[in-house]
Every structure is written in C-alpha cells, then in structure tokens.
C-alpha cells in the first residue's frame, strides 16, 4: 500500500497547479502573449486532473486519508490545521472539477481568444478551480469555508470580467453579496459547531456524533443544519437566494459553464452530502431542505418556460435541477444527489458550451427569437446540444434519466406528494429544453443578414470538448443503474465509504417500473408538445401568467422593494438625522451651550462697583444661610 499511499500524500499537488497557473497568469497578465494564457491555464488543470485521477484510483480501492499541511489557526483550545481530506466523495468531486474544468479551459482558449484580457481571464479561471478544489478537499469546515468564499470571489471577478459595463459589475456585486448572506449562515453554523463540539474537523465531529457521547440537545443539530443550509442556499442558488445565478450570465459563457456545471453551485450539495451524519440527526432541517428544493425546482422551471435568452433558460434550468438535487438530499439520498450532480455536470456543461458556440456563431446574439434553423450551419453543435437536451429531459438510456429517476423514486418512497410535484418539474424541464432546442436549431433563421452570412461551425478546440461531454452525458449514467436493472449500484457502493445516507425505504420493483414509466412517458409527451407548439413560433407580447413568468415572478423587483430600497432609505435617514442631528448635534450642542452660558454669565460683569459689592453681600447671605439653616 505504501507506494500507493504516496499518491494520496501528493494531494496538495491538485490545488497547487491551478494556483501556480493563477500566479503565472496573474503576474504576467499584461506581459504574456494571448495564447500563452490558455495553454498555461489548461495544462495546469490537466496536470491536477491527472493527479486526481491517480488519487481516485487509490481511493476506489478503499484508501482514504487526511493530509495535514500546516497549522492554520491555533489559539488556546481552538486548533484548526490546514488539512486535506481525501476520500471517495472528495476524490469524485476532484475528478468532476478538474475533468470538466479542463474541457472548459480548452474550450475557452479559443472562445476567449480575441478578448484583450484573455490572460487575466485564465488567471481567474485557474483561481476558480483552485478555490473549488480547496472547498472539496478541506478536512474541516474552515478550509471548506475558505474555498466557499473563494469561489464567491472568483464568480465576482469573472461575472464582472467586462468591468466597463455597469450592469455586469452590478451582477457581479449581486452575486457576491447574495453569497455573503449565505456565508454568514455558514459562519454561524461553524460557530455553533465550535461551541458545542469544540472542533471543526469532519472526522472528529462526526466521530463524536456517531459515538453518541455528544452532550447536545437534538435541537442543536437542527440549528446547525439549518445554518449550514442557509449557506447552501447562497452557493447553490436556492430560494430565496437564487436570483444571483441567472444574472451571473453577464460573464463569458464558458464561465457560466464552469459555475453551473463543475464548480460553485455544486458546493452546497457537496457540503450537505459531506455533513450527512449531522443532517441525519436533524429531521426538521432535512424537511426544510426538501421543500425548499422542491419550491426552487418548480419556480425556476416555470420561469424557464418563458425566457428568450438562451443562457437564461439554461440558468433557470440549472436552478431547478439544483432543486432536484436538494430534494434528494432532503430525503436522505445523498449518493443520489451526488449522482445527479455528476450527470448534471456533464450535460449542463455540454449545454452551456453548446450555447456558447451558438452565441459565438451568432456574433454575441443571445435572444432565441432571433435564431432558428442553425442546425444546418453547425451540425456538431446541434447534435451534441440535442443529446444534452435528451439527457436533461430524462429520456431513458441517457445519464439524466438514471439520476433523476433515482431522485424521484427516493422522493416517492418518502412521500408521494413529493414525487408528483417532482414529475411536474420534470415535465416542465422537458418542455422548455425542447422549446429552446427547436427555436434555436430548427425552423427558419430569424436573425439579420449579416449574422446569417458568418454563421459557421465553431473551431475544433470548441467542438471537441462538446463531443467529449456528449459522450459522457450518454454513458455517465451507467455507474448508477437502478435496482430494477442491476442490484449493483456502482456509485453507491463507491461512495458508501464516505457518505452515510439517511434511512431510505426501498421500493419493490413493480412500483419502480411504474414510476419510470410515468416519468418517461410524460417527458416524451412534453417533448412532442414543445416541438409542436414551437414549430411555427409567433412572438406576441405575453399576457397574464406568461407575462409574470417572463418577468421571473417579479422576484427581483420584490427584493428591491422590500430589502434594498428600505435599507438604503434607513441608511440615509440614519446619516441625516441620527448622525448629523442626533449624536453630532448633541455633541456640538454641548459646546454651543457652553458658549451661550459664557455669553450670559459674562453680562453679570456689569462694571458697577455697587453691584459687585451687592453680589458679595448676597454671597455672604447665602453662606450664612447655608451654614446655619442647612448644615446644622
């Protein structure tokens, strides 16, 4: 084993190379030639992918370890090492992050080639990967938190990449602040853990909990779990903190792919899956997770029905897919959630990159009302995109089908209502994805002449990643075959070492067959509906519900009116009245009153000797009166 263990001991290489990439690109942001940035960045990620592959191979054989690099914070009883945890869960995520990350790097190399700040761009991209790796590798919540905030930072930098545009920078700000709100929840959660258990490291914490000699009330678990979940809301864009994700489209498209597929949003799922032990003891928190996830899934899906921006549709679909994952977490099927994370990573990355190549071809145009019939100009994109759509829609045989179906099954086992709602969500997914597909690739072209002229297939650097991802979107699901097909659930057994699922009821096969049938059937139906409806598209201004959906349920406006404006109003009020008039006014008032008093008292000095003597006599009177009628 010794020789093998070395690989795990080398885990620090995994984040190291992206960091190096970041440093090189970052320091040479204005010296390096444009092409160099892409090369350096991609290679960095590639190496760490290789390393993590090695690690994965070891971990697959049951190896796991905690690698401590150095003391991070040590103060009295508080001891937090800078340590990495290598086990099945983190290894899997390493693969996803570095693998898909690499593809996206390669893709961006050509996508961003014409941009001036390409080197800076790759620096940020590497930093992003680095932070995400820290997040999943951390052996305690603090290291996770570092990555947690790190990805927030990178999303801020990348969303605001074109910083001259005020809307983009606003979006970036929004993303960061929303995340910060979540992070506060996470922080409070950490504090609670520290206060009650005195440690942040996973092993010690879960060890104490499982050994059962943790002397804490059951309510505490709920509180901790809820606080952490608030953090997850921020990162993984759940209600009510999801609004930043659609706006994050402001960044370059590959960034969206990275955020949505490989990094960032999956953090929340990873965190909860990691803290499964904790969550299993927090039933209330789990229910909360479930219903929030459900609500998010439905809401986002419904919004996606009426979006015209190709990336917005995908963004909302991500939100709703994340909702599905949280449902899975909520019902205690952590492995299922992770499974869906993986498959979703494949096809969502695929879809985004596809849309990227579409936008590339359309010369920056994102409105699907202006597209149509692109299929004949860009075959590869069309086909890969179609695969992605089928996968996400849950057509049997593709990855999405297995993972989503597992989620629905688990939900049904917990509570049929969940299942039906889930189905509704799934149907909407199928519908809007194919609406998107049809409007984009089929029918007649609705754009301008100039656009039509330079429509073209993207270069190989962009299409190859598409193809690779398409392949994975197809086969990715077969590591998690449902029980009805094979008793051996590869992923579940693999993750079993690291993740302790909640008590999930196992359904008998007939029910499972039925469930699959229903979902598949409905999905197919919705697909046809979508195709039929959007064959001859007519974009009349929406009315009624459709209008509400187009405007995303007016949630942003709501937040603006309920939180943002009042806050600024309050601040202005405080500044103008409490500060200027109130406190400072008081302070100055004291000084002014002293001056005023001085001015008055000095008038006693009338210059009249007679009065002076009179004052003396009065003083004597007062003195004697005091001494004879008060003191004794």
């Amino acid at each position, binding site marked *: 084993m010794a020789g093998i263990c070395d690989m795990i001991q080398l885990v620090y290489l995994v984040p190291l190379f992206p960091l190096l990439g970041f440093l090189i690109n970052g320091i040479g942001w204005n010296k390096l030639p444009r092409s160099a940035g892409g090369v350096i960045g991609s290679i960095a990620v590639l190496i760490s992918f290789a390393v993590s592959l090695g690690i994965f191979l070891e971990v697959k054989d049951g190896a796991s370890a905690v690698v401590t690099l150095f003391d991070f914070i040590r103060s009295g009883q508080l001891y937090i090492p800078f340590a990495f945890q290598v086990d099945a869960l983190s290894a899997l995520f390493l693969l996803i992050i570095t693998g898909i990350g690499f593809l996206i790097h390669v893709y961006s190399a050509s996508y961003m080639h014409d941009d001036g700040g390409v080197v800076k761009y790759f620096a940020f991209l590497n930093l992003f990967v680095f932070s995400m790796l820290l997040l999943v590798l951390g052996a305690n919540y603090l290291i996770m938190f570092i990555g947690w905030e790190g990805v927030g930072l990178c999303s801020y930098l990348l969303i605001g990449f074109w910083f001259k545009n005020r809307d983009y920078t606003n979006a970036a700000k929004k993303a960061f602040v929303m995340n910060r709100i979540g992070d506060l929840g996470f922080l409070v959660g950490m504090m609670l853990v520290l206060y009650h258990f005195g440690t942040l490291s996973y092993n010690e914490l879960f060890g104490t909990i499982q050994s059962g000699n943790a002397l804490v009330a059951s309510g505490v678990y709920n509180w901790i779990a809820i606080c952490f979940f608030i953090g997850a809301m921020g990162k993984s864009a759940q209600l009510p903190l999801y609004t930043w994700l659609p706006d994050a489209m402001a960044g370059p498209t590959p960034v969206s792919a990275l955020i949505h597929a490989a990094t960032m949003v999956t953090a929340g799922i990873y965190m909860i899956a990691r803290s499964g032990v904790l969550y299993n003891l927090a039933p209330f928190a789990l229910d909360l997770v479930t219903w929030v996830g459900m609500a998010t899934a439905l809401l986002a899906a419904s919004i996606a029905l009426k979006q015209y921006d190709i990336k917005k549709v995908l963004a909302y679909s991500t939100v709703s897919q994340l909702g599905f994952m949280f449902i899975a977490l909520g019902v205690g099927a952590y492995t299922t959630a992770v499974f869906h994370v993986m498959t979703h990573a494949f096809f969502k990355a695929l879809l985004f990159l596809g849309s990227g190549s579409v936008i590339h071809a359309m010369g920056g145009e994102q409105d699907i009302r202006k597209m149509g019939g692109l299929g004949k100009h860009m075959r590869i994109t069309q086909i890969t995109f179609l695969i992605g759509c089928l996968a996400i829609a849950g057509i049997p045989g593709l990855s999405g089908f297995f993972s989503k179906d597992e989620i629905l099954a688990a939900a049904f086992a917990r509570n049929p209502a969940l299942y039906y709602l889930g189905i509704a969500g799934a149907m909407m997914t199928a519908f809007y994805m194919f609406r998107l597909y049809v409007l984009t690739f089929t029918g007649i072209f609705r754009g301008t002449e100039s656009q039509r002229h330079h429509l073209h297939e993207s270069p190989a650097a962009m299409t190859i990643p598409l193809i690779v991802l398409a392949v994975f979107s197809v086969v990715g699901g077969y590591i998690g075959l449902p029980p009805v097909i094979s008793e051996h659930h590869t992923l579940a057994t693999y993750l079993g070492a690291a993740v302790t699922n909640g008590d999930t009821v196992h359904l008998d096969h007939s029910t499972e067959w039925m469930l699959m049938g229903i979902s598949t059937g409905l999905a197919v139906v919705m697909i046809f509906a979508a195709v039929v409806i959007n064959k001859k598209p007519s974009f009349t201004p929406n009315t009624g519900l459709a209008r509400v959906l187009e405007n995303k349920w007016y949630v942003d406006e709501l937040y603006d009116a309920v939180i943002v404006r009042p806050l600024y109003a309050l601040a202005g009020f405080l500044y103008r009245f409490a500060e200027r008039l109130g406190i400072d006014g008081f302070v100055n008032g004291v000084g002014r009153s002293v001056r005023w008093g001085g001015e008055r008292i000095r008038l006693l000095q009338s*210059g009249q000797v007679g009065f002076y003597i009179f004052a003396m*006599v009065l003083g004597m009177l007062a003195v004697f009166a005091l001494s004879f009628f008060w003191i004794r």
Partner: protein
Amino acid sequence: MPVQYYLFLSLALFSIGIIGTLMRRNAIVIFMCIELMLNAVNLLLVAFSKMWNDPSSQIFVFFIMVVAAAEVAVGLAIIVLMYRKVHSVDINILNRLKH
C-alpha cells in the same frame, strides 16, 4: 455691661455700614461707611478685651486704626485722581471696564 449688648450694638453698626455701602453712589460716602464698619469692629474688640481681660485686643484696635489711616491716605488719593479725570465721584459712571 455684659458683652452681649456690645455685640448687638456693633453688629448693628456694622450692618448699617454695609447697608450704606450698598445704598450710596458717592465713593467718599461709601468709604466712610466702610470706616463705620471698622469702628464697629473696634468697639466689639474693646468689649471683648474687657470680657477676657486681655490687652492684646486693644492693641489690635490700635493697629486697625493704623491701617485705617494708611488706607485713607491711599484711598482718598485714588478718589482724587479719579475726580481729576471725570470730575465726579459717582461710582455708577465707572463702567469702562465690564463684561
């Protein structure tokens, strides 16, 4: 006569002196009232000296007279100086210095 009577008397004189200083505007008269106060004190001192049968207080009276004389010399000089300037000894017009 017991000393109480003299206490009454000299306190009365003393107070009349004070009242005088408060009531009059003529610097000289005010000064005279102050002299009155001093004399009240003298009277009381002598009375007490009789009571205690102690000469030192009469010596004290003597010194009070000495000081009074000196004060008169200076005081009247100042008043005259003032009079030379403003041709009045009315204290109410002394208000160049105020506030």
